């Protein structure tokens, strides 16, 4: 049944987020003194196809984790919609919670099926693994739940096979270990296998390699790429590090998205983002990404090195307070998303040659 569904809806993207906003509210004195609200994600649209890789990059507080969680149905958007293969996730959840399966019509994907198809791996693998489970116990759980027809020995054989596949040999030995007996890289591999055992359509990898030593990061990314091929899954890879995002997306033929204060300010193919960046913020991030083959730091290509308070974002273009190219119009008008080329969009007036920006006065240096 589910197999059939997947095939039917192959044309639809795995996930489509349409104009998604996530607002967090913090009530002061139980709401009596008003509310502070932050739009962690503000009007973002993004589609992730089958076997696609999108790497989201941005500074802390830019909303990339919130957007990621929204994409896999862990965070309900305040506005906008999230569709899994063309079907609204939150409608499906409500429908299925009412327990009246009769409400589900032919072709509707059950919410539980969506949940299973959308997986996450975290930054800290140790905290996502049960400390009292051996590797084998840990990995048996998803198989018991989702492939209950497998016999015990089949399950074990499958787990051993996967452990060997990710280089954790002898698998017999690793299967009996507890998380604290594994290195960080090994823990992350177990977490990765566990999520893949659900045969997911999309895995959210939230800073999944940031806690690893430099020399291990590439190894784990290579494994992710390898497994992506084998399991035909998509990744939404979240990182504050453009170099890692570049490595993963480049090798998967994917895209890089740049977020700033809740907005997706630029997205495009890896080559477009690296060789033809349009948004001054993307350029600043490229400057900030150390490159062992260049030799000069130079001054930061930004006017202010601190990020503004996300609960009170600047008017107009949110980057104008730091942007070296900002002009008067950037202070008042918020730039829409412009098409730069087929596979490249950016939210900056400078991408259109005829915009009034070019006649606008540069902003004075003093804020």
């Amino acid at each position, binding site marked *: 049944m589910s197999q059939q569904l997947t095939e039917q809806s192959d044309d639809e993207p795995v996930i489509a987020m349409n104009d998604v906003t996530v607002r967090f509210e913090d009530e002061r004195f139980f709401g009596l003194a008003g509310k502070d609200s932050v739009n962690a994600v503000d009007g973002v649209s993004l589609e992730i196809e089958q076997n696609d890789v999108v790497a989201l990059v941005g500074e802390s507080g830019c909303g990339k984790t919130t957007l990621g969680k929204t994409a896999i149905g862990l965070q309900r958007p305040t506005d906008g919609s999230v569709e899994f293969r063309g079907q609204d996730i939150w409608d499906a959840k409500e429908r299925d919670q009412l327990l009246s399966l009769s409400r589900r019509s032919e072709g509707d994907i059950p919410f539980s099926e969506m949940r299973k198809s959308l997986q996450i791996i975290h930054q800290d693998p140790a905290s996502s693994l049960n400390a009292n489970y051996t590797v084998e116990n840990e990995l048996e759980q998803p198989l018991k739940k989702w492939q209950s027809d497998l016999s015990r020995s089949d399950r074990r054989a499958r787990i051993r096979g996967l452990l060997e596949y990710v280089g954790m040999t002898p698998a017999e030995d690793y299967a009996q270990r507890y998380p604290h007996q594994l290195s960080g890289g090994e823990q992350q591999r177990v977490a990765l296998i566990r999520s893949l055992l659900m045969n997911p359509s999309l895995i959210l990898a939230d800073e999944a390699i940031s806690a690893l030593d430099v*020399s291990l990061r590439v190894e784990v990314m290579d494994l992710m790429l390898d497994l992506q091929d084998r399991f035909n899954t998509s990744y939404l890879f979240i990182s504050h590090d453009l170099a890692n995002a570049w490595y993963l997306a480049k090798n998967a033929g994917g895209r890089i998205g740049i977020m700033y204060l809740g907005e997706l300010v630029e997205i495009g193919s890896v080559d477009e983002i690296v060789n033809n960046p349009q948004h001054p913020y993307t350029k600043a991030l490229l400057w900030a990404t150390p490159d062992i083959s*260049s030799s000069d730091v130079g001054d930061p290509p930004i006017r202010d090195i601190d990020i503004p308070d996300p609960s009170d974002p600047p008017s107009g273009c949110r980057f104008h307070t730091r942007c070296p190219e900002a002009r008067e119009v950037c202070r008042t008008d918020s730039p829409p998303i412009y098409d730069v080329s087929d596979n490249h969009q950016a939210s900056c007036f400078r991408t259109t040659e005829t915009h009034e920006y070019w006649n606008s006065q540069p902003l004075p240096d003093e804020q």
Partner: protein
Amino acid sequence: MSQQQQRHGPTGIDDPIIEMRDASVTFDMARGSSRVLDNVDLDIAREEVIGIVGESGSGKTMFASAILDSVDDPGYLEGEVTYHPEDGEPVDILSLTHEELKALRWKEIAFVVQGAQSGFNPTMKIGDHFIETLRTHDADIQEGMERARQLLEDVYLEPKQILESYAHQLSGGQKQRALIALGLILEPDVLVMDEPTAALDLLMQRSIVSLLAELKEEYSLTIVFITHDLALVTDLADRIAVMYGFDVVEIGPSEELLSSSGHPYTRKLLNTVPNIGQGTAEMDIIEGSAPDPVNVPSGCTFYPRCPLADEQCEQVDPPLDPVGDDHFAACHYPDAAKEAIPLAHLEADE
């Protein structure tokens, strides 16, 4: 001893501000004694920026602690650490009393830790930290606070606002910059920074690196920048020392070290860093794991993971031998290493 001195040499340094000889740090543990710094010889030149690069468990933080004899109990430090003030007699750091060390710290050698850690007392305003530090060292408060305001401006902070704030009111990047300003308040000659930017976003990291380059010029500082991130420090550092298995395995001028590293570990490490400037995206990996401090391999500490290792590597610990101008590597086969492990970032340039 004298022979060894000569062999390791002052690694090409004429006027060292800090000399470290045979420095070892040992912890006695239930399963044996754990050596987390292993006979390190290193000179730091006056007014240089030296990057100390290593992965976790390489001994780089112990190296920082050893500079000011601040290894936590029950660890103990052996060897020699000598500080050469600009004028005056050399100071044998390991023979100083607790009080004398305290006086040396801040005034001569200042430490900047990761801001995310306990840099500031949460119940005190940032300004009070400056005042307290000045008072502890019997410095003129008014004059000192003038300097504090200047230093805060140097690190792109608004002095009035920052001095009146508590640590929790500042962002990570602001805190880290305030800590740098605080480190410089007593006009030290040496600034030792242990992962000063690790918890920060890249844009802030890189901005701080650019800032340090300016501060170094303005205040004639010697900077010891300890980090796991080789790429981050290359622009700033005059020299880079790579640590592996609790000792320095390679040291040399930054550009030279990047373009013709002699140690297989350095070469492999360089190849594991994704490099956007590079056209192809082929990366290397380093098989195996870093040595256990209780059970350090005999011979070369890297041999179990090294593609070139042979019997000699297994038995004889290679000394830091010259492989270029002011450039030293602790490897028996530096030429073979260059041959066997091409550097990805150079290939791409061609």
